[in-house]
């Protein structure tokens, strides 16, 4: 009995009409990847991300307990904006797990179906109708979900006539989704319908239905709070991916850094542009971004003497950079320092990589054999029937022309590959509990080294990071002349993330190196985890344009640049940088070590 009361109490306090079914609960995180695939298949915008929503507060009618629990309740309602689709963190409305799961997929399909700005009540019903018509598989589930929800709603309290009328309309809409019903106005918020998508959290559109201004201004304030929570979470993300600009929308092209830099556009010479000094930053009050700058600055000031174990090779190299607004290069603007880890111990391939390496190796062995057949040889592994027939049929059977064999060639393919890995700070980001992007990149480089070594292809490996134009660190992991062995493995294993991603300069230097190779085909393979960025104006359009220019230079040198990224946002900017076919986006970054050799083979087979 006591238990019962406790449960009831809980359900009231947490604002549920009915107790959920925790044993049948399913969480967003269990489904997220499948959901986003499904969302795209159902016609959703591939650029949008899927994530959890914050709860929102609604003023619904409650029993006397309201006074105890507070006037407002918090609900997880699904919604979307131009950036993403937001789902409840967990769903346990139904006693069958299957139904809770279906509800997630239903919401994803609704999101793909509904326009961004909508007459939410009507459009939700139209979308429901469309989905039921389109997918017979939803019908039975919808019927069950709607029936359960209708039953649950019976317990809701409606005080006024208006509220009762509204509740009736909602129930009707659930049972018979049609598009002609006006949403009746009534006091308070209606209890939300989990099958529907609600207007964007930030616009407050949702409470529109019935809002008289609230007695205390709390709602307003709390609403903004919740919005901020989501944005803050997003911001950490943003730092990794640089700002959320979309390169195809001209207005958004000017990121804040550029606005700042416009006034400074004359300090472009290398020496003058000593620093993006702190004072400049103090003057900035760009709201949202402020924190970001502060933390970035901090990172910069904390610049450790991590160079200690990296040994500079040569005095450094000056490289130009493209200034898109002036439409010209700034010559000698970038200082690139080749580095080599001095104290890297020769190391064997780590144990956890061995099984895959072995498998890849055996796959590649056969691949290599099949590909290099030299025809009409004096000696060889198989008979060349053509030459024998020609010889037999020709009138003068010369002894000299007896090249009756094909030989399987063990020589290299006419191909050189330079792998350029992004070692910026963002690669410190964790993918899961015990893996960071940098670990995956390291493993990938190793795995790739093993694979390409098996193929006997000519290759080199470099990594890079930057702190402004003055310090572009260009790590030599393996140059074209070194052979792949434990020393190289050791160097790869000792790789540590640096700071930012001045991609243009790194591409230019790599182009210089690769262009000197004598082979006919030259592949520049770039592994990255996000947009080009740096602490100065390189963030935003400037960096994008410079990188694009560098890619074009590489192409005009006869190289084939190709980018592999684990940034799921990459479809927004990579086509602009590398062209439609010049890149590949990996959605599960953990797979990079395995996929990288496959992509390489696909490109060169």
């Amino acid at each position, binding site marked *: 009995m006591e238990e019962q009361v406790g449960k009831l109490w809980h359900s009231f306090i947490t604002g549920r009409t009915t107790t959920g079914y925790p044993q049948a609960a399913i969480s967003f995180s269990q489904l997220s990847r*499948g959901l986003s695939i499904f969302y*795209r298949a159902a016609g959703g915008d*591939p650029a949008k991300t899927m994530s959890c929503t914050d709860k929102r507060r609604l003023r619904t009618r409650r029993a006397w307990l309201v006074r105890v629990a507070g006037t407002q309740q918090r609900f997880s309602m699904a919604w979307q904006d131009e950036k993403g689709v937001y789902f409840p963190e967990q769903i346990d409305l139904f006693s069958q797990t299957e139904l809770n799961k279906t509800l997630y*997929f239903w919401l994803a399909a609704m999101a793909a179906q509904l326009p961004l700005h909508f007459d939410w009540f009507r459009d939700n019903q139209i979308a429901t109708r469309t989905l039921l018509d*389109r997918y017979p598989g939803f*019908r039975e589930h919808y019927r069950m979900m709607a029936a359960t929800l209708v039953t649950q709603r019976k317990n809701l309290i409606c005080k006024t006539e208006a509220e009762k009328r509204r509740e009736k309309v909602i129930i009707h809409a659930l049972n018979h989704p049609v598009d002609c019903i006006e949403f009746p106005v009534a006091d308070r918020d209606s209890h939300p319908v989990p099958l529907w998508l609600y207007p964007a959290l930030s616009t407050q559109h949702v409470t529109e239905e019935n809002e008289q201004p609230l007695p205390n201004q709390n709602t307003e304030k709390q609403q903004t709070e919740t919005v901020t929570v989501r944005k803050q979470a997003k911001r950490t993300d943003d730092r990794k991916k640089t700002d959320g600009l979309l390169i195809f929308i001209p207005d958004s092209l000017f990121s804040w850094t550029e606005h700042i830099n416009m006034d400074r556009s004359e300090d472009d010479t290398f020496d003058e542009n000593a620093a993006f000094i702190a004072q400049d930053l103090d003057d900035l009050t760009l709201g949202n971004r402020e924190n970001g700058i502060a933390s970035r600055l901090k990172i910069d000031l904390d610049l450790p003497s991590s160079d200690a174990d990296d040994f500079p090779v040569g005095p450094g190299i000056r490289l130009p950079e493209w200034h898109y607004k002036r439409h010209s290069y700034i010559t000698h603007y970038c200082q690139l320092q080749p580095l080599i880890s001095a104290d890297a111990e020769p190391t064997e391939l780590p144990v956890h990589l061995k099984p895959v390496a072995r498998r890849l190796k055996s796959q590649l062995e056969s691949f290599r054999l099949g590909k290099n*057949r030299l025809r009409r040889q004096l000696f060889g592994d198989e008979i060349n029937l053509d030459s024998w027939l020609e010889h037999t*049929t020709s009138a003068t059977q010369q002894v000299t022309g007896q090249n009756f064999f094909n030989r399987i060639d063990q020589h290299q393919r006419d191909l050189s590959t330079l792998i350029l890995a992004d070692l910026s700070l963002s690669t410190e980001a964790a993918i899961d509990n015990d893996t960071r992007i940098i670990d995956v990149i390291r493993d990938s480089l190793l795995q790739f080294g093993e694979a390409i070594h098996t193929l006997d292809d000519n290759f080199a490996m470099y990594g890079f990071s930057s702190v402004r134009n003055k310090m572009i660190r260009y790590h030599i992991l393996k140059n074209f002349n070194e052979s792949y062995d434990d020393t190289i493995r050791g160097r790869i294993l000792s790789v540590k993330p640096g700071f930012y991603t001045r991609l243009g300069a790194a591409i230019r230097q790599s182009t210089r190196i690769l262009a000197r190779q004598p082979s006919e085909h030259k592949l520049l393979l770039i592994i990255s985890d996000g947009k080009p960025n740096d602490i100065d104006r390189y963030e935003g359009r400037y960096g994008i344009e410079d990188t694009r220019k560098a890619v074009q230079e590489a192409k005009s040198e006869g190289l084939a640049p190709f980018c592999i990224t684990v940034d799921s946002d990459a479809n927004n900017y990579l086509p602009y940088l590398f062209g439609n076919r010049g890149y590949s*986006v990996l959605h599960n970054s953990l797979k990079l070590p395995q996929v990288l050799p496959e992509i390489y083979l696909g490109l060169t087979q």
Partner: protein
Amino acid sequence: MTSSCYYLPQNNEIELFCYAAELQLPVLIKGPTGCGKTRFVEHMGEKLNRPVYTVACHDDLTAADLIGRHLINSEGTYWQDGPLTRAVREGGICYLDEVVEARKDTTVVLHPLADYRRVLPLDRTGETIQAHKNFMLVVSYNPGYQNLLKGMKPSTRQRFISLQFNYPEEQQETEIIMAETGIDSKTARHLVRLGKEIRRLKDHDLQEMVSTRLLVYAALLIEKGFPKRDACVHCLAESLTDDAETFQSLVQLINLHFLSGKEQAA
């Protein structure tokens, strides 16, 4: 003339092909796998009443495989024309499928045939054949594969009139599937919609797109009585991905189209 080889036009390709045939111009067909390229050429062969010689190109294909070679029998040696030479001599369409797969030194034998000269020199016999007036060269390739080492030389490419093929529109594809398999229109429509949804995953989640061919396969199985959902799983999900999660999402999608409530509850 009615042709027995069914082809539903997607665009102006039939007209263009007829002009090209009349004007003796070579044609290049680009398009993803299983979108009807081969079918189109077969169909045009019937329509124009010309034999079609198809060669599937691969990187071991030698010029001799196209042109011909000497062979030996009990009476001694004799020359045997390859498919290209036959088409050139007797008049006919020579169709080189996936031409980029052939090595570049093989495809250069096409050059004198694919310009105004229309000749085929046979080094081995010393003969130079002037192409028959009904000879037509057609090549196809799939531009979807990113490959650095392959691709057509511009000098080859610029000898052809190009036609871009794609998977047919919803309405047309439904019609094709019905015509090819005799399946009912409702199922056909669901198959096509499902195909369209899966195609949206290209690049992001899948390397490949569902081809019309695969949809036809699924429809054939269904028409013979194989359960719809399973037919789709084997034709559309298994054949497109090995990734477990992607596969699950595809199955989910298939279920939404092809499971009745009862089946689902079971």
